[in-house]
C-alpha cells in the first residue's frame, strides 16, 4: 500500500489538572489514505475529539499537552513543525468540520467573511477573487442563491444550512484531509442524511481523505472505509469497516454492536455492556475495559494489552481475543 496521507502512532495527549493527570488520549494509532474515510468511533469522553485537536495541534494549553507519539502527515511529523508552518497546514491542507454548526460560526461576522478569510490567508488572493471562490464553495455544498446569501449572518441560516456553510469553509482551500468531528450529531435524521450524502460526494469528487468522528455505529457503517474504535483514550480495535462489523474481535466492539437496536430486526432484549464508562482521571491499571468485560481474566486488570496485529489490516488491543494471554509485555514497548 502507498504511503498513508496521515499516520498517527502512539499519540498521547494528557491534561494536567489540579486533581491529577487526565490521560484523555493515551495510545492512539491509525492511518488514513487518500480518498478514504476513517471512522473514529467511541463514547463521550473516550478521547476521540481530543485526538482530532491533537492532530491540528489545537489542544488548549497549558493544561492540555501532547506528550508523546507521532503524527506523520505525508511523512512529516506535525508535532515537530514550528507553529508558523503548522498554521500554513491548518485550514489549508487539513481542515476541520466541527460538531455544532450553531456555535462554530462567529455570530458577528457574515458567512462570506468567515469563508474568505481562510482563502485570502492561504491562497494569497485579493478580496474579489476570494469572494468568487467563497461563492463557488457555497454553491458546491448546495446552498441556493449563494451569491446573495454570502453576505448574511450565521443566525439567518437553518441548522442544516449552517453545517453546509461550515463544510464550505472547510473545503474552501481544497484540503487534502478533512476532519469531521461529529458533523451530524446536532442535526435531525433527514438533514443528517443530506449532510452525509454531501460528504460522500466530496470524498469521491475531490479525492480528499476524511476522518469522521462519531458515536453512531450506523453512520460508521454508511460512510467509512476503515474504523478505529476508541475506549478510555486508547484505540482498542482498528480494521476495515466490513471486518469490524462482520468479525469484531475486541469485547467492547462486540458489546457495542450487540447493544444497539437495529431497525427491522425485533429482538426481545438487547445485550447491554454492563457498568459505566470509566473516569479518565482514575483509570484502573491494566485494560480500562476490564471491569465491564465479559471475557475478563486476571491479567486484564494487571497489565495493559498492546494493539496487536491479528490479521492484515486488523489490530486489536486485548489479552484474550488477540491471544496475548501468555505473552509478557516486552520491556519498553510503546503503548
Amino acid at each position, binding site marked *: 500500500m502507498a504511503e498513508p496521507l496521515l499516520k498517527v502512532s502512539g499519540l498521547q495527549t494528557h491534561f494536567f489538572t489540579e486533581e491529577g493527570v487526565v490521560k484523555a488520549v493515551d495510545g492512539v494509532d491509525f492511518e488514513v489514505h487518500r480518498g478514504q474515510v476513517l471512522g473514529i468511533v467511541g463514547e463521550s469522553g473516550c478521547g476521540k475529539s481530543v485526538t482530532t485537536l491533537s492532530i491540528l495541534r489545537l489542544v488548549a494549553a497549558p493544561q492540555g499537552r501532547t506528550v508523546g507519539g507521532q503524527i506523520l502527515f505525508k511523512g512529516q511529523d506535525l508535532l515537530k513543525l514550528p507553529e508558523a508552518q503548522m498554521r500554513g497546514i491548518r485550514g489549508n491542507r487539513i481542515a476541520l468540520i466541527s460538531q455544532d454548526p450553531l456555535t462554530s460560526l462567529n455570530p458577528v461576522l457574515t458567512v462570506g467573511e468567515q469563508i474568505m478569510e481562510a482563502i485570502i490567508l492561504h491562497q494569497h488572493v485579493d478580496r474579489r477573487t476570494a469572494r468568487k471562490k467563497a461563492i463557488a464553495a457555497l454553491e458546491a455544498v448546495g446552498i441556493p442563491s449563494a451569491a446573495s446569501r454570502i453576505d448574511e449572518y450565521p443566525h439567518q441560516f*437553518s441548522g442544516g444550512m449552517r453545517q453546509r456553510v461550515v463544510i464550505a469553509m472547510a473545503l474552501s482551500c481544497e484540503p487534502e484531509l478533512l476532519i469531521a468531528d461529529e458533523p451530524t450529531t446536532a442535526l435531525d*435524521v433527514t438533514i443528517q442524511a443530506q449532510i452525509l450524502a454531501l460528504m460522500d460526494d466530496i470524498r469521491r469528487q475531490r479525492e480528499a481523505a476524511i476522518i469522521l468522528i462519531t458515536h453512531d455505529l450506523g453512520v460508521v457503517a454508511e460512510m467509512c472505509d476503515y474504523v478505529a474504535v476508541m475506549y478510555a483514550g486508547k484505540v482498542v480495535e482498528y480494521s476495515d469497516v466490513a471486518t469490524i462489523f462482520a468479525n469484531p474481535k475486541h469485547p467492547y466492539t462486540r458489546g457495542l454492536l450487540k447493544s444497539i437496536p437495529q431497525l427491522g430486526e425485533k429482538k426481545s432484549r*438487547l445485550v*447491554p455492556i454492563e457498568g459505566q464508562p470509566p473516569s479518565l482521571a482514575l483509570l484502573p491499571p491494566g485494560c480500562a475495559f476490564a471491569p465491564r468485560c465479559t471475557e475478563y481474566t486476571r491479567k486484564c486488570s494487571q497489565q495493559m494489552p498492546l494493539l496487536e496485529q491479528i490479521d492484515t489490516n486488523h489490530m486489536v488491543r486485548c489479552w484474550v481475543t488477540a491471544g496475548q494471554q501468555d505473552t509478557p509485555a516486552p520491556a519498553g514497548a510503546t503503548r
Partner: protein
Amino acid sequence: MTDKLLEVKDLKKHFPIHRGIVFRREVGAVKAVDGISFDVLKGETLGLVGESGCGKSTTGRLILRLIEPTSGSVRFGGTDLLPLKDRDMRPMRRRMQIVFQNPYGSLDPRMMVGDSIAEPLRVHKLMDGKQIQQRVKELLERVGMSPTYANRYPHEFSGGQRQRIGIARALAINPEFIVADEPVSALDVSVQAQVLNLLADLQDEFKLTYLFIAHNLATVQHISDRVAVMYLGKMVELASSDRLYAEPKHPYTQALLSAAPIADPTQRKRDRMLLQGDLPSPVNPPSGCRFHTRCPLVNEVSNNLCKTEDPPLGDLGGGHLVACHLHKVAPASHLLATVPRA
C-alpha cells in the same frame, strides 16, 4: 379487545407570540401540537417519533398537564384531565409519571438522590419516615443501584446512573402510566441498552403502560408495540411497530426510515429516499399537507390536493392509520384498532 388507558382527542397547543409593549397583541402562534388524536392501550408501549420541533415532547407534557393544552381532550382511565382543578389533578399524578431526557437537569443538584426518589412519597404523604427510607432502598435496588447511594448528590453519578435514579423516582408511587421523553438519547451508546432493558423489565413487572418519545427510529421500534410518527405538530402515520417498518405508507415515514443509518456496511448500497430542504417553521406551517414542501411524491396526487387540503388520518385496516392523499381511505371512525399484542 384491550382496554384503553389513555384517549387523546384533537389535542392542540399553540404557543402565542406577542408583540408590542403597551398594547400586547398576539401576532401569531407556534403551532407545536396542532390537533392530534390517539389511544394508548393498557400495558402497551406506544412510540412517538419525529424530528426536533415536531411536537412529540410537547405532546407528552400536555398529557401530564405540565403544559396547559390550548384545546382538545385527554382522558385517562375514563377521567377527562383537562378540566380538573389543580387539587383534583394531584391524585391523578400518582397514576402517571414522566422520565426526562436530560439526566443532568432532571435531578435537583442540591437534593440527595434518596430525597429525590422520596419526593413523590412525601408530596402525597403516603408513608412515614421509616417506610420511606425502606422504600427508597427497594427502589434503588430495583433499578440496579446500591441502596447506600441514597445519601449522595446527583453530581457523583454518571448519566446512566442518574437516569436510573430518575426512573426510580417515577416508580416510587406505583404509577400505571409513564411518559418516557427521550430517556436514552442523552446517554452513552453502551449504557442506552441497559436503560432500555430496565424499562422493559419494569414494564413486565409492574404492568406499566408507556408513551415512549424518541427521535431514534431503531430505539422506538425496538421498544414499542405501536409507533406514531409526527411531523410539524400533526400525526402522519400510526401502525404496529413491525408493520410500520415493513410497510410504511406515508412518504415522510418512508423518508425517515430510509434516512436512518443502518449499522451494517453490507446494506450501504440500498435505495434511499433523500428529502430536500429543511423543516418548515411551525409558526407558518405549509398549507394543505404540511409535508408537501418536501414530499418527493407531491406530484403523484392530482389537482394540487396536497397543497390545498390537509389530508385526514384514515384507517388502512388493521389499525394502520395514515394521513396522506396518496392513500384514499375513509377517515378513521375509531382510532382504536384491534392490534394483536406482541
